[in-house]
């Protein structure tokens, strides 16, 4: 089913969650896009004379250990945290669609080979594989995106392959083949649009999970590195101040929590709409 049809379904019990989820995610998106202009201070401006200030009229949430405004860093962090997850998601979807699509559509030896490769990748514990790739590639935003994408893609490839195989046998695809359409035309016109919707739902449900991995790696110093205003990095920076200035640690974590919740809410609501026959959620 197409994305548009998905959203046009008649109102169900979960409609509230869908609205709330959409609103929250949109808020986050707005923060990510316009954060730089919304932030009251320069998030990277180091001012050691202003370090570790409590909240006041100038710095609504206080400053961190290098005198940077906490609120500004939190706001700008949205861009970095959300952006890195979106990049990861894009890469995962690309790999998944490529491998899964080719595998499912062509079948035969190609399918067998690619699925063996997928199985290999799925044997590793996700974070262990991410550690491995960061060792290979080094730290930094682009590398952590690649590392997490390479740890996650296999599952998506399998999903896509399953969907493609299911779609391949459908009447309109067969009819199109009889009408003489080329393989790629069939893939593009019939198969891909019909897997976009369910794939979108699966991806949305997984964004929260990926976000936790990205911020987790950054927290360990293996991902985005200081002085970047990424929430995981900020928590790591604030470790030693947990007793004296807990807000430096609590608030970035709250932002991660909040963002993951928003995406999970959206993902759950989308999944419920996709399959309304399931009364269980």
């Amino acid at each position, binding site marked *: 089913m197409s994305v548009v049809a998905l959203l046009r379904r008649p109102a169900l019990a979960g409609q509230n969650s869908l609205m709330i989820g959409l609103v929250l995610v949109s808020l986050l998106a707005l923060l990510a896009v316009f954060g730089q202009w919304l932030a009251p201070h320069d998030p990277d401006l180091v001012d050691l004379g202003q370090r570790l200030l409590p909240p006041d009229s100038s710095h609504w949430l206080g400053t961190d250990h290098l005198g940077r405004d906490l609120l500004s860093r939190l706001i700008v962090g949205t861009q970095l945290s959300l952006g890195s997850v979106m990049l990861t998601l894009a890469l995962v979807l690309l790999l998944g669609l490529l491998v899964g699509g080719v595998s499912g559509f062509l079948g035969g030896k190609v399918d067998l080979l690619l699925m063996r490769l997928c199985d*290999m990748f799925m044997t590793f514990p996700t*974070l262990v*594989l991410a550690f491995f790739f960061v060792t*290979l590639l080094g730290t930094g935003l682009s590398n952590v995106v690649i590392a997490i994408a390479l740890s996650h893609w296999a599952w998506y490839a399998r999903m896509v392959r399953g969907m493609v195989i299911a779609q391949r046998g459908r009447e309109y695809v067969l009819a199109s083949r009889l009408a003489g359409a080329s393989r790629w035309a069939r893939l593009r016109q019939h198969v891909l649009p019909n897997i976009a919707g369910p794939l979108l739902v699966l991806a949305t449900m997984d964004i929260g999970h990926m976000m936790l991995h990205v911020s987790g790696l950054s927290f360990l110093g293996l991902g985005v590195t200081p002085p970047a205003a990424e929430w995981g990095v900020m*928590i790591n920076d604030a470790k030693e101040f947990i007793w004296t200035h807990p807000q430096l640690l609590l608030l970035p974590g709250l932002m991660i929590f909040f963002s993951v919740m928003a995406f999970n809410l959206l993902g759950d609501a989308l999944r419920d709409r996709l399959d309304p026959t399931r009364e269980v959620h």
Partner: protein
Amino acid sequence: MLRYILLRLVLLVPVMLGVSLLVFVLLHLGSTDPALDYLRLSHIPPTDAAIAEVRHALGLDRPLYAQYLSWLWKALQLDFGTSYLTGRPVFDDLLYYLPATLQLGGLALACTLLLSIPLGLVAARWQGRWPDHAVRAVTFLGVSMPNFWLAFLLIALFSLWLGWLPPLGRGGAGHLVMPVLAIALMSMSINARLLRASLLEASGQRHVTYARARGLPARQVWGSHVLRNAWLPLVTATGMHIGELIGGALVIETIFAWPGVGRFAVSAVLNRDFPVMQCFTLLLTGLLMVCNLVVDVCYAWLDPRSRLEGVSA
């Protein structure tokens, strides 16, 4: 049943080989020259002569398949080389740190199962009423919470504010509570939701109607026909949980200064200590594979469909 187990054990070997080959190939496709890393970590200036010498010493001038085979041969003898950083045998070090991680991971798994089962049961049994809503709210929060943030919250609450539990290190039971909780929360939440969904789905199935139709008392229907069938998805999910719990342990260990492989691995990643990372990856992956095998065997025991090749008469 025994045949199934033996078959799966045998199949473990090619998968492990494939995994080791993949790791080996990826390492060689990596962006840096291991010889340079070695020199860097040994604080030897990378002159051309030094590089050539190290390359020869590490066997990097031989063809790839030869390198793999010699690596494999040594690996089978549990010799995974020495760390670039410390110069000590990699396998011995990892083996030294592994039990602490296994302790955390194992307890976290037990915690996941022990806590999620009553929650899932309660939520399914009182579906639509307040216990269900409460469980769903708690699990929703649990699924969204970053485990490292939770760890700090727990430390702030139980160590700094209440002073009940020690914030760091490995010791007695008191040292285990917070790390295990932090690692287990997410998996526990996922599992509780899964059990709830599974129970609700199982109770709507036709064989349950038929069991009731045969006059079986409600309790027996619930136990023999709903519960018995609802376990299956949970068993499958356990395999996934173990992978996530291992990852969680790696992160949480650094917070609690827990002497496990996590901290060891993080420093290896930062220093790009390839031998350590290679062994670490293979060891933990091997562990996960064995756990998945156990899970699959349990599943096969519970669900005869997956192990019998029977076709309809």
